[in-house]
């Protein structure tokens, strides 16, 4: 809201902001209802995803990691083994050739997510737009989802937290992972903190977009250059796709 700490909000300001957002949201379902007739591929609304071109991902660069953790208030508590990491840079060395490269790995927002399958309370769930989240109101902290995730994407909060970001509630005893910056998407923005940072640094290794929209940049790139996913053998059909692994 206001950047001035002491400035009171007027009701007008408050409600206007609200009304604008509601209008945007209520129009959206209507738009999506009309779309299927136009584009067969766009069956039921968008599916948000990422495309990561590993050949552009610079060794030793951690801009995306930093940006994500800043955006979502993820901080180290000085205990690396229990600290949460929503995104990490993985360094790969091919055994046969010794070729090295690196790439960011986060929750892959699987279409058939094992974490959702195993969660006893429905706390892990997949939104209609394909984003996989943990509902911390019903997560009991059993960590079965962490056992099930093939990408080690999730972190358990091992201690009390303070100073969370308003849009990213997180707390002791629950599990969390990359949200694909769902707060931005719900605000109508069409990028994530990691993509933004990567572009800002000029690497342009990551693209965010709607996998269901054939005209989106990400769909076109995928169609033109192909892609692969991590552990494609598991057929989880992740929304995070890679080029150049």
């Amino acid at each position: 809201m206001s950047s001035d700490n002491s400035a009171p909000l007027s009701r007008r300001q408050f409600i206007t902001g609200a009304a604008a957002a509601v209008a945007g949201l209520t129009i959206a379902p209507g738009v999506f209802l009309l779309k299927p007739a136009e584009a067969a591929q766009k069956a039921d609304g968008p599916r948000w995803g990422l495309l990561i071109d590993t050949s552009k991902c610079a060794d030793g660069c951690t801009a995306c990691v930093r940006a994500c953790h800043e955006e979502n208030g993820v901080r180290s508590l000085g205990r690396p083994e229990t600290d949460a990491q929503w995104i990490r840079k993985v360094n790969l060395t091919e055994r046969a050739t010794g070729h090295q490269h690196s790439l960011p790995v986060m929750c892959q927002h699987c279409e058939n997510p094992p974490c959702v399958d195993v969660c006893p309370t429905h706390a892990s769930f997949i939104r209609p737009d394909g984003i996989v989240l943990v509902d911390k109101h019903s997560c009991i902290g059993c960590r079965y989802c962490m056992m099930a995730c093939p990408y080690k994407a999730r972190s358990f909060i091992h201690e009390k937290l303070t100073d969370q970001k308003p849009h990213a509630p997180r707390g002791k005893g629950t599990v969390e992972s990359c949200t694909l910056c769902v707060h931005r998407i719900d605000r109508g923005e069409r990028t994530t903190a990691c993509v933004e940072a990567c572009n800002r640094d000029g690497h342009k290794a990551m693209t965010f977009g709607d996998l269901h929209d054939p005209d989106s940049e990400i769909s076109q790139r995928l169609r033109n250059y192909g892609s692969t996913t991590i552990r494609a053998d598991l057929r989880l059909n992740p929304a995070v796709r890679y080029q150049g692994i």
Partner: protein
Amino acid sequence: MTLKTHFRDIEGRSARYVALLGGLLVLVALGVLAALMKGSQGHYITGMNNQVVWGLPHIFAILLIVAASGALNAASFSSVFGRVAYKPLARVSGLLAMTLLIGGLVILVLDLGRPDRLVVAMTHYNFKSIFAWNIFLYTGFLAVVAVYLWFMIERRMNRYVPIAGYTAFIWRLILTTGTGSIFGFLVAREAYDAAILAPMFIAMSFSLGMAVFILVVLATFLGTGRPLGDLILRRMKNLLGIFVAGVLYFVLAYHLTNLYATRLHGIEAFVLLNGGIYTFLFWVVQIGIGSVLPLVLLFHPVWSQSRRVIAAAAGLVLVGGFAQLYVIVIGGQAYPLEMFPGYDMSSSFFDGVVASYVPSLPELMLGVGGVGFAFLLFALALKFLPFLPASLSDEHVDPHADQSGTRTAAAGA
């Protein structure tokens, strides 16, 4: 008409019994303390971390749950397989099954990140989750065995005992399958993605449950000064031997199938050859001390006559089972996820390296707390309800032996 057994609750005033209760209460208090510490501090005070998310408490819990299903052996043998010799022990067996299961569940619940949300777990079921299924299986098991016990104790209901017995027997098989499937369904992890884990857990339930049961029977009968014949003991120890051999068979089959698949060579080498503590636990504790040694003890013509040796063998089987679960649960997590076949990986999030796990005191306290709670319930139940047969001397066990001296005061089981 089969032989009537007289059941009598225990006096419960002897110094030894009070001391036992006191000791168990101390264990429970330790567990409660650990749970409170975890609740206020969070899990960082334990050895568990983002790599090894299930630790010592889960091993204790799974051990208790698996043993609970196996503790029902004696009851099943009498009601389902018509082995009359086990009839006098059916009630204790059912009771032990219930209390062990409760102990295991308490550990599991107290180790949750949010134990205060237990109600959520009971009201929001995801039927795709094997975990949610297990919640049903566990509570259902308690209910089925409770009814079974009631039918055994209540004379009017005696004729329904076989039905209850069958239900309980089938239920326990499903329950152990469910427990094994918690791991068997984890496609992501090399160590777990195997259907054979379910039958292996059933075999483990037979052997671990029998081991606990033998120890408990020895302790209660000798502790209360009731006669215990060698006949029943000999039968039980022979069965224990067979069950231990059965588990060994499944372990062998599991590793042989894994060795056949090249993609699993990494995890196999880790467990069998170069996994450090896990390799040690596998070969020395699980196979050596926990399987081969007890087999020798149980079938040695001279040694196996001694009750001490039988008790020692049962104890070793439990130690071996603990090691086996440690290797499966912790070892399976410590081995890095293979996300990029053909590549070595490293990151700040411990990718590509064997995760470290050092069990911590609070975890141990929680584990023994659960064990203490299970046996506390058991000991209290023996005092207030007639679960324990007054005598298990040989002539009480063998129905063809002389029936003099038995009384028909209480309903037969």
